[in-house]
């Protein structure tokens, strides 16, 4: 069957609604990579088997990620007439108990995290009354400030069901665009919406589209950059795994707007589930005629291919990504010319990030003014962050632009892990900077973060507390960029190594004050003189920590002391005899045999043998091990 008319699409929508809101029980198990890593597949099987054993008929769906990774595996249960409840930290055993309760017509209170309200449940029933102590999902601090546009369907639908995507207003935008709007009007809408590149650069998307549309040369191409590689970041993976049709629809609209008939989705090869899901989505859209020849009878042809990334971080840089698609080495080239005028095969090419493409359909469906009204002046719409590190609530978060770092970290994130004080946050992955807690009043927008010495980046947000050494952090990220530099240009190849070596000297207690000056000089050079964005941003962790945490550098260099107690050469582990019970656990666990002592007598650590691995510190049941800084 091909979708040709609006009523064909309505038929698809009805089928989607019938599985989203069936007359029987529907259970969603969050099975994006994050859920699978916490054992969601076992939970899924337990639900299936228990329901089978009890003869309970249900619609069991492997959905994508709901964002609250901390609480996974997450199971979302809709019991018609009773309500819809989200259960957290499920295990196969808990899942079996849950199914047993459902079989007797009950939504149990055990493990219930939140009630999903009426807008996501056409038949809310009595759930609120039935579970008086369970909050609404919007009342959870983690979800309270979120606004989901990019992640609108993530965790809510079967990522392999185009019917469920359509049931949640998917493809409304494409139908409207192809049947009602000339291509230039589509570009105008994107310009007016204020959407900016969500890959981190923040270039106005509509402006890029206009340049490409106006550029001479046929054919033109669109590309989706899904080569996400920042440590601790998984926004793009989640979108591709949880709602691949949103990217396919966005790219189809983009192709129509700029005059391209071919597009490429470039996905990091280390994301096998994302590759699988998005390939499936492309095939399904082709089957239904939503990709291919003469889409919806509009005369517009558009095809998509999925290309698996070549395994290099630098391939996320747009010119390197294009070289990689062309079969060359993933190496950037100088700009200008920009891809919008000379991109894939030298032709005009729009390349946007996964999240940018996923933002397109809602803008066209609901209007540029609606989108421009979200966020703040000059920074419209929403942005997705993966909030990780030493923070109480971790997960994938979508918020309007302009939220402050404090609202993000203390509000949504719930503050430091185990109630500890948060010291800094790094935004933008290895290319970003570390901002201190005293700047948490700053709003999250492209310009503010750049001025503060960090970047918006693609959406990594790593929270650090007093146990994090900022020099060690800078060194960690430099090690990453040094290894991922393609090596083409001198500043990035040689400069990242110089910085890494200087930082290594400092954490080993060999650093001098001259080293600090040299470090800053090299960092400034690499930032200014590198060929591509990787090198131009690689020094940010160094420059920002030098700017905001100079005292920690001075402590390492002058006092030969690591205030956070992290750098091995600058700390010593000592057993406090008045606390040690002589249980012998540390002695058994020490990998180098550095601990000795009589049973039930205080033990001691031989500093000559000790490698400062901290295993003793972690295993001591009474906290008798002290880190001497």
């Amino acid at each position, binding site marked *: 069957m091909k979708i040709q008319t609006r009523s064909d699409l309505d038929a698809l929508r009805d089928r989607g609604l019938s599985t989203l809101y069936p007359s029987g029980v529907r259970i969603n198990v969050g099975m994006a990579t994050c859920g699978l890593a916490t054992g969601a597949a076992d939970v899924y099987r337990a639900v299936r088997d228990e329901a089978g054993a009890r003869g309970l008929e249900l619609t069991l769906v492997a959905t994508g990620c709901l964002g609250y990774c901390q609480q996974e595996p997450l199971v979302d249960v809709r019991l018609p007439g009773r309500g819809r409840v989200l259960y957290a930290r499920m295990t196969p055993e808990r899942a079996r108990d849950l199914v047993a309760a459902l079989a007797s017509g009950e939504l149990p209170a055990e493990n219930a995290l939140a009630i999903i309200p009426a807008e996501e449940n056409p038949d809310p029933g009595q759930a609120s009354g039935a579970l008086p102590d369970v909050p609404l999902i919007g009342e959870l601090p983690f979800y309270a400030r979120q606004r989901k546009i990019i992640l609108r369907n993530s965790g809510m639908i079967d990522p392999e069901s185009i019917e469920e995507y359509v049931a949640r207003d998917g493809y409304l935008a494409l139908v409207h665009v192809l049947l009602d709007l000339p291509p230039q009007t589509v570009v105008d809408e994107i310009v007016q919406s204020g959407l900016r590149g969500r890959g981190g650069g923040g270039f106005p998307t509509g402006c890029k589209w206009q340049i490409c549309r106006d550029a001479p040369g046929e054919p033109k191409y669109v590309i989706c950059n899904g080569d996400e590689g920042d440590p601790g970041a998984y926004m793009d993976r989640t979108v591709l795994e949880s709602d691949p049709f949103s990217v396919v629809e966005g790219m189809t609209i983009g192709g129509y707007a700029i005059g391209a008939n071919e597009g490429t989705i470039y996905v990091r090869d280390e994301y096998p589930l994302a590759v699988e899901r998005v390939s499936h989505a492309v095939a399904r859209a082709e089957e239904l005629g939503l990709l291919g020849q003469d889409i919806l009878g509009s005369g517009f042809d558009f095809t998509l291919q999925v290309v698996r990334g070549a395994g*290099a971080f*630098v391939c996320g840089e747009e010119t390197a990504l294009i070289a990689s698609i062309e079969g060359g*080495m993933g*190496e950037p*080239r*100088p700009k*200008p*010319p920009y891809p919008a005028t000379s991109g894939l095969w030298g032709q005009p090419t729009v390349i946007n990030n996964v999240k940018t493409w996923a933002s397109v359909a809602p803008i066209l469906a609901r209007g540029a003014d609606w989108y421009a009204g979200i966020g703040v002046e000059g920074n419209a719409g929403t942005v997705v962050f993966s909030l990780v590190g030493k923070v109480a609530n971790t997960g994938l978060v979508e918020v309007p632009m302009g939220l402050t770092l404090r609202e993000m970290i203390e509000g949504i994130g719930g503050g430091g892990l185990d109630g500890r004080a948060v010291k800094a946050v790094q935004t933008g992955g290895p290319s970003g900077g570390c901002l201190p807690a005293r700047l948490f009043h700053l709003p999250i927008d492209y310009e503010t973060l750049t001025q503060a010495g960090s970047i918006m980046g693609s959406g990594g947000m790593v929270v650090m507390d007093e146990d994090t050494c900022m020099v060690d952090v800078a060194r960690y990220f430099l090690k990453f960029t*040094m*290894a*991922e*530099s*393609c*090596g*083409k*240009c*001198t*500043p990035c*190849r*040689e*400069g*990242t*190594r*110089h910085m890494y*070596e200087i930082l290594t000297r400092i954490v080993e207690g060999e650093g001098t004050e001259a080293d600090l000056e*040299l470090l800053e*000089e*090299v960092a400034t*050079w690499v930032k*200014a*003189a*590198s*060929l591509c964005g990787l090198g131009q941003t690689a020094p940010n962790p160094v420059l920002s920590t030098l700017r905001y945490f100079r005292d920690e550098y001075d402590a390492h260099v002058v006092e030969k002391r690591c205030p956070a107690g992290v750098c091995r050469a600058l700390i010593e582990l000592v057993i406090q005899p008045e606390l040690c019970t002589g249980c012998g656990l540390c002695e058994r666990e020490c990998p180098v045999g550095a601990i000795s002592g009589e049973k039930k007598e205080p033990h001691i650590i031989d500093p000559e043998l000790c490698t400062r691995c901290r295993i003793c510190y972690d295993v001591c049941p009474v906290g008798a091990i002290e880190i001497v800084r």
Partner: protein
Amino acid sequence: MVNLTVNGQQVSVPEGSTLLQAVRAAGVDLPTLCHHDGLAPYGACRLCMVTITAPRRALVASCAYPVEEGLVVETDDAEAVAARRLALESLLSRCPQSEAIRELAAGEGVTASRFGEHPPERGEELCVLCGLCVRVCREIIGASAISFVGRGTERRVSTPFDVQAESCIGCGACAEICPTGAIQIEDRGNKRILHTWNTTVELHTCPECGRFFAPEPLAFLKEMFPEAADTWALCPDCRRRRTALQWIEQAPG
């Protein structure tokens, strides 16, 4: 023509020129390593950095930046000079034995490096990774016998799998273009040994004088130039003699 200002001096260059061409047209000398007039712009060594001061400020590699009407360019402002010096200081630490690099560095006032010598495990390193050899082999010769291998600090140039390159024609353009003399080629008997590329090609013997003069793989030239069918096999001296004789025979009277 495009008009711009270089160090306060007006210059006009043809449309499509690079900033480096404009800078040189203004009579200003800039060091380069990865640039060659016969190859496409590459922008890797970052020696030819200049500062654009108007209409917007930017530090750019002049070799890869297309000229624009009205650009104002400074080659010797502090940022550009610092960028050149640090690049040379880095290359000096990479290749302290390279005469060419020492000279270039000295030209910018850099005589010693504050960075340790690298990479110590490779001994005498002369390659600065400018990529001229790779690009001349691909863009001009069309053989693509060598390529970059690895990335970042592991980056180097080699043949596929570090063994004899099947597509190498032994032309020696790589060694000819290398600015630091890092590529070792030797003609020994009827063999040309490209030591750096673990590759050996047979040399062709001149049927008239018996001298070895060109790599065998160049035999494809006779298909490319059918008019040379009966002279292609000759060494340059014998070919000149043969051609001269033909002219004498064909001379009127």
